[in-house]
Structures are given as structure tokens and as C-alpha cells.
């Protein structure tokens, strides 16, 4: 069984990539489990085609729900769970992830799956959001970033968190790539000592598929973007080991964008 956790700045495309990678892996014949850890419960929409009830919502009234109450099968038989969490502005999403993930791993036979993907909200801002990798539920992390400063800033913050808690990262997914942006991501990748696993360009097909609540591979199976995601998924599958990333000071981070080298 392999497992990864996807981290990155909010809105960077983690959930879209997570569902597309899950779909691609399932197409390779793997039994895939996609676990959405975002309180918005939107990680699995592209697989199921709609929102599914979240584990934590179910646990409000049933402390010990059976697996079939919170695990749903979607496209290509991919298993999906949404942990859920509080509405914006109240409660504690981090605590929710701790409770939800612990419950899943206590009750679900994870060895039934070939590949588990965790879609984790934002960067590692607190202990709760780090639980997935801290407790080794996921073997390592894939960091999603675009080439803009704030996105790389968030990626660096994730590297810092992983360095602190001594957790491996597998590499970087460069999403929404632009014509001149690769140099920034490459510099960052070198400095934090993580490989770029793949480059995903901005895609109208992805936007179109998202509107249909489907993965791009399902809607446009022969498109260029689908082939890119399939190729990246294969690379992820073949990663043997990760490494603890370095992290950069704010000055070092700014140099990526402003130095003439």
C-alpha cells in the first residue's frame, strides 16, 4: 500500500489534482482511496459527482458510524471519504482532522487499498493539519505550487513544517505553469532540495471538467492535459523514497524572484 498527502496554498488546485491523480491511478488498475481533509468537503466531488456526507457530520449523532455510512464509491470504483469539519469561523478544523483520520484508520482496513491520497487543506498551519503525516498515515508529502510568490511562500512554509516534524516530501507539483514561471519553481526546488515531479499547465479542459464535477481524464481522456496527469501519476507511483526538505529564510525566498542569476 502506498500513500501520499497533498499540501499547498489554498486555491492552488490541490483537490483538482488529487481527484485527477486518483482517477489516473485507478485507470492503471489500482484500488484507490481518496480522503478529503478539507472542512469544505469538496475533494471528492469530481469522483462522486456531488457532495457526500462527511464523517464528522455523521459522527455528530453517531459516535461509531459503520464504514458504509461514510465511505462512498465513485468513478472507476474509487473509494472516497470526506472528513469534513466546522463551518467557517467557528470550532477547530485541525481537531476535526485528528478525530476523523484517527477514526478512519482505526476502523478501515487500509491494506485493502493499493494507494491512498489525502487532500489536506492549505499549508501545515497547526498540529491538526499535520496529523496525516506526523502520525505516518501518509508516507510523505507532495507539495503543489504555482510560480507566484505567495504560492511558493506557502510551499516554503510547508517545507519548514516538514523539516520541523521530520517528515519526508516526495516532490513538487508545479501547477498552472506559465511561460516564464518555471525558473522560479526550479530555483525553489533546488534550494529546498525537492524534485519537480511534474508540470501542469493552465487548462481550459480542467475548468470545463470541474464544472461537470468530473476529472479531466474522464471527460477528455485523449487530451494533452490528461496525458500529462497520467504521466505524473505514473511518476508518483514509481517514487521510491522521499526526503526531508530544506526551507528558506524570507530573504532567500525573495532572492528567487529578484536575483539576476
Amino acid at each position, binding site marked *: 500500500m502506498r500513500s501520499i498527502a497533498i499540501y499547498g496554498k489554498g486555491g492552488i488546485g490541490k483537490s483538482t489534482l488529487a481527484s485527477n491523480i486518483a482517477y489516473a491511478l485507478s485507470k492503471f488498475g489500482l484500488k484507490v482511496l481518496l480522503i478529503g481533509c478539507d472542512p469544505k468537503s469538496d475533494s471528492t466531488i469530481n469522483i462522486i459527482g456531488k457532495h457526500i456526507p462527511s464523517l*464528522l457530520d455523521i*459522527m*455528530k449523532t453517531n459516535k461509531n458510524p459503520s464504514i458504509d455510512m461514510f465511505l462512498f464509491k465513485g468513478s472507476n470504483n474509487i473509494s472516497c471519504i470526506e472528513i469534513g*469539519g*466546522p*463551518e467557517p469561523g*467557528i*470550532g*477547530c*478544523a485541525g*481537531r*476535526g482532522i485528528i*478525530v476523523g483520520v484517527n477514526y478512519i484508520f482505526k476502523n478501515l482496513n487500509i491494506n485493502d487499498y493499493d494507494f491512498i491520497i489525502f487532500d489536506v487543506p492549505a499549508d501545515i498551519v497547526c498540529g491538526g493539519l499535520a496529523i496525516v503525516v506526523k502520525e505516518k498515515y501518509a508516507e510523505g508529502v507532495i507539495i503543489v505550487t504555482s510560480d507566484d510568490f505567495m504560492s511558493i511562500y506557502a510551499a516554503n512554509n510547508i517545507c519548514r513544517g516538514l523539516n520541523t516534524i521530520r517528515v519526508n516530501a516526495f516532490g513538487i507539483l508545479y501547477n498552472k505553469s506559465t511561460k516564464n514561471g518555471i525558473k522560479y519553481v526550479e530555483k525553489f526546488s533546488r534550494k529546498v532540495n525537492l524534485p519537480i515531479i511534474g508540470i501542469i499547465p493552465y487548462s481550459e479542459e480542467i475548468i470545463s471538467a470541474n464544472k461537470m464535477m468530473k476529472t479531466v481524464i474522464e471527460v477528455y481522456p485523449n487530451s494533452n492535459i490528461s496525458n500529462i496527469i497520467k504521466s505524473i501519476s505514473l511518476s508518483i507511483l514509481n517514487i521510491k523514497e522521499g526526503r526531508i526538505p530544506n526551507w528558506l529564510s524570507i530573504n532567500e525566498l525573495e532572492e528567487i524572484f529578484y536575483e539576476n542569476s
Partner: protein
Amino acid sequence: MSVIIHPRPSPIAAAMYMLRDLDVDVIILHGPSGCCFGPARLLEKDGVKVFTTALSENELIFGGEKRLRNILKKINELFKPKLIGVVGTCASMIIGENIKRVVEELNLANKTICCNVHSGLGDNTIGAIEVLKEAMNLGIISKEEFERQKYMLEMATLLEKTRGTARLEYIPNSPGDNPKKVAYEIINDIRNNKEVACILNAKKETAFLFADIIIVLNEIKKKIGGKIKFIANLDPNIGLPRIRNYSKIILEELNRRGINIDFITGGLDEYPIAGEKAKEIVLNSSTELAIIAGIPHAVAIEGKVKTIAITSGSRATSNLKSLGYDYVVNEYGAHRVTLGKKYIHRSILGNAIRKIMRDIS
């Protein structure tokens, strides 16, 4: 910065005690049901109705304001309290609960003291100051009284850090000296005509226990004579009405027994500074033995005259010993003994002295 690694009092508990001093009818702890269980039970003994919102895992994830709203509403309808206190806890404050918003939504803001504290804020007095600030905002106490109380609490914190149980990284527990042995010391010194100062420097309701030493020393005086002067922080005109009343009750009881306090050093909430006055009185006299009850470390006369300290708590006892007080008696659980009682309660040392005096006669 060194961290104190022995257990310390909590700002939550301090907030609850201060709410009691302000005569709230009910206190609602917004947190898991086990939070501050000990102080809650003691305050119930003292007549305050204490409730908890009993937050569980669900509320910690999804928020507990709805639970607080329901409980606050129910308590208000059921008990019709004139004054309510709502106190935060670690759990509710960490997840960002807004106590005040709930209180305002229920139109209870004009009779509810909201206190956003948790145990990670540092000094316990922070909780008490928070309550006082809110009480001032509600017009329950004046700005002058708030400033006076705040100063006293800050001085109390300073005292704890310089001479109390917050002065060292770790202070072990100690049972203190044998009360019988200390009782003999006192009786023998009085019998040998030594000049004795009996100092009550007590904190609030604990005076109901520590004032017993005044009664027993007076009994000795009546029986075998002796030169004893009484010094006490029992000013009935200082502090919140409840605290003034404690002084009044104690003074009346002492009066009934024919005891006159020679020097009043301040009110029962002024123990952090009243000790300084007591020290001056003792050092400007020919006192040979000082018996200090309550918060003895506020009366810094160890090493200058023979000292017998009477306090509560095995860590406080150990601290006084290490400061150099000659004898230290631990009056176990002063709060537990005095809460809910409004009369001078017999103390361990007092009883040891009484027993010896009976045997003498």
C-alpha cells in the same frame, strides 16, 4: 527564562473566585465538564451555583457557542440570577469561542460578566483582573476600586515571584513542623515572658481559619499572662462588600471574646502590602517571637526575630522553611475548611495549643 514545573494556580480558578467575591449568583464554565472541577465544587460550598457547558469532541470541532447559548438561556429562566459570570477555559478559548457575542444575543449583557481566560495566560491573577475589568465596565465597581484591586493583584503576583511559591523552578512539598512541638514553643515563650507579636496577614476567607491563632493566644494570655500584641489585616472598610463583611464578622467575634486588635494593617485583600506594615511594627518594637498566620512570606522578618509561620499548603510550607522561618505549621486545606463558613474555625495549631493548655490546668 526558567519555567516553574510544579503545579500552579490557574487564571480560570482565579476568575471564578473573583466572581464569587463580586457576589454573582451563577458561574458558567464554558468548556469540558472536568475543567476546574475542584474550585467549582468549593465555590458551590460557598453558595455559588456553578455550571459547565460540558463541551465534548463535537463542540471542540464544530464550535460550542450554540451549547453556551442554550445553557445560559436555561439557567437564566430557571434561576433568574441577578448577576452571572461566564468564564472561558483552555478548550473554548483555543477554538476561538466568542462568549460575549452569545451573551449579547441573549440580551444578558447588562448582568453578565464575561471572562475570556484560559490556563495558558500565565499568572493566575490575570483571570481575576479580567473579571474586575468587566465588572468595572458593567458599573459594578468603580474605576478607583478597579485600580486598587488591580494593584493588589499585581503586588500579590510580585510577592509570589519574589518570596512565594513562584520564586523557584521547583519547590518540593513538606508537611511542616509538628503542631504539638510548635504549640509548646509558643506556650513556653509566653510563659518565659517573651514579647510576642501575633500577626494575621490572611487572604480573604482563609482569615476565618487563621484568625483562630488570635483566639488561642488570648486564651493563653488570660490563663498565664504574657506580653502579646495583635496585628491583623482586618480593616472592615476596605474591599468588596463581601470581603469587608468577612473582616466585620471576625472583628465582632474577637470583640465578643474581649480581644482587641492593636494594629490594623489593611483589608483582607491587601495581604501583599499589609505584610510590610506588620513588619515595620514588629521591627520597631522589642518583639522576640513573631507568629504569622495566613501569608507569612509577605511579612519578611525571618532571621530578624524568632518566627513561627502558619500557612496552608505543603508547598507553601516548604517554601517558608527554605526562606528561613524558624517553625512552619501547615493548616491543611484552608480554602476547603473555610468556604461556606462565616465564623472563626478551629485550626490545627490552635487545637494543639488548647490541648496543652487543658493539660496544664
